[in-house]
C-alpha cells in the first residue's frame, strides 16, 4: 500500500469523526438546552428532574454509557425492538452519536444553567412585567443573552465532543483514532499513522476554535462588556 491510501483511510476516519460529533453535538445542544432551562425554572419538580438528569449522565464514564446503549439497551427492550436495534446498519455510528450526545448534554445543561443564572434577576422580571409568558421570556430575552455569555465554554464542550468520539472505537466505530490504530496492526508504521492522526486533530481544533471566535465577534453586542 502506498502513502496515498493511508492518508485516504485516515481522512475517511476523520469524516466519521466529524459526522459523529456533529450529530452528537446537535443532540447535546437540544437536550442540554431543555434541561438547562428546566434547572432555572421556579418549579421544584422541573429543577429536580433537571438535577437528576445531569447527575445521571455526569456520574458514569462515557465508555460505560456507550456499553449501556450498545450492549445492554437492546437486551432490555422487547425482543423484536432489541433485534431491530442490533441489526441496524451502522449501529456503532448511531450508538456513538446518541451516547456521546446525551453525555455531553449534561455538560451543556450545566453551562446554560450557569449562563442563565448569571443574568440579572431584573431581566426576567422586566420581561414578565411586560406581559411575556415564561416561554417567551426565555425565547426572546434570557436565552439570547445566556448563549452569548456561554459561547466560549460551549466551544470547548464542542471540542470535547469531537475528542470523545474516539471513545467509540470500543464499540467498533472506525473514526480517526481507530483508523490510525488499525494501521498499526497491519503496517507497523505506527509512528507515521499516529503523527498524521495527531496533526489532523490539531487542524480540526484550530479550525473550530477560529470559527467560534468569528461567531463570537459576529454575535457580540456593541458597547456591551460581559459581566457588567
Amino acid at each position, binding site marked *: 500500500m502506498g502513502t496515498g491510501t493511508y492518508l485516504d483511510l485516515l481522512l475517511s476516519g476523520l469524516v466519521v469523526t466529524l459526522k459523529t460529533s456533529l450529530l452528537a453535538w446537535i443532540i447535546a445542544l437540544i437536550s442540554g438546552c431543555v434541561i438547562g432551562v428546566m434547572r432555572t425554572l421556579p418549579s421544584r419538580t422541573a429543577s429536580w428532574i433537571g438535577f437528576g438528569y445531569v447527575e445521571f449522565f455526569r456520574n458514569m464514564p462515557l465508555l460505560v454509557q456507550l456499553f449501556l446503549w450498545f450492549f445492554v439497551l437492546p437486551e432490555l427492550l422487547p425482543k423484536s425492538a432489541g433485534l431491530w436495534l442490533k441489526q441496524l446498519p451502522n449501529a456503532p455510528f448511531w450508538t456513538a452519536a446518541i451516547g456521546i450526545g446525551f453525555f455531553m448534554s449534561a455538560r451543556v445543561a450545566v453551562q446554560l444553567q450557569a449562563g442563565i443564572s448569571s443574568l*440579572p434577576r*431584573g*431581566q426576567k*422580571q*422586566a*420581561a*414578565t*412585567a*411586560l*406581559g*411575556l*409568558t415564561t416561554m*417567551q421570556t426565555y425565547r*426572546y*430575552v434570557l436565552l*439570547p*443573552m445566556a448563549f*452569548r455569555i456561554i459561547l466560549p465554554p460551549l466551544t470547548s464542550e464542542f471540542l470535547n465532543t469531537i475528542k470523545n468520539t474516539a471513545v467509540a472505537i470500543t464499540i467498533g466505530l472506525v473514526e480517526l483514532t481507530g483508523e490510525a490504530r488499525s494501521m498499526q496492526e497491519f503496517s507497523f508504521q505506527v509512528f507515521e499513522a499516529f503523527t498524521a492522526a495527531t496533526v489532523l486533530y490539531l487542524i480540526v481544533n484550530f479550525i473550530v476554535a477560529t470559527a467560534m471566535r468569528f461567531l463570537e465577534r459576529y454575535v457580540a*453586542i*456593541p*458597547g*456591551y*462588556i460581559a459581566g*457588567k
Partner: protein
Amino acid sequence: MIEINHVNKWYGPSFQALKDCTTSVAKGEVVVVCGPSGSGKSTLIKCVNALEPIQGGDITLDGVKVNDPRTDLPKLRSRVGMVFQHFELFPHLRIVENLCLAQEKVLGRRHDDAVAKGMKLLDRVGLKDHAKKFPAELSGGQQQRVAIARALAMDPIAMLFDEPTSALDPEMISEVLDVMVDLAREGMTMMVVTHEMGFANKVADRVIFMDRGEIVEDAKKTDFFGQPRSDRAQKFLSKILQH
C-alpha cells in the same frame, strides 16, 4: 384603579416582608412610596402586577383580582407599565426592538405599527435619534427614559416605578424626573417608589411611608410634609432632607 387589601407576604417560611398592608391608588392619582431600605417598598410594588405572589389579602387592578389563579396574568401585566431601578433593557436588542418586542409578542401588533408607536414614544422622551443603538451605548439616564418609553408602548392604564432614579448619576436624575412629571400631569395613574422628595412635592397626591413591612403612614402630600404623625416617618424625613 389599584386596591391593596390586608396583604401579607412571606419570603420563605419565616420572613414576613409585608404585614397587613392596605392602600389604594385612584385613577389619575400619583402615589409616592418611601421608607428605609429593606422596608418592603419594592416587594409591595411587585405584588401589584404579581411579579411576587402574596400569601394573604387581595389585590385588585382595574376590577380584576390579581391573586386569583384564573386571572390571565400576562394580559394583566401588559396593561401595567413597570420601570425598574436598573432599567432592565434587553441588552441584545436595539432600542427600537426593545420597544417592539412586547407590543408584537403580547399585544400581537404588526411590526410596522409597533415600530411607528415605538418611534413616537422615543421622540417623546427625546431619544428618537438613538433608535438603532444598543442599550449599552446609551447613558444611564437615556436608558431609563427608554425603559419608560418601553412601558408606555403597551398603552398601560397605570405605571409602577421602583426607584427609577437611584442608580443614576446626579446630573441624569432630572432628565428622567422631567419625563415622569410630564406623565403625571397628563393624568397617568402612578405608583412611585422614590426618595426624590422634590418629585413627591411637585406631583404626588399622596405619600405612603413604609417601615419593616408595614404601611406606617398613608397621607395627603400636604399632610405628610406638614406634620407626619409617626416618629419613624419624622426621623426618616429629617434624615433624607438633611442634605
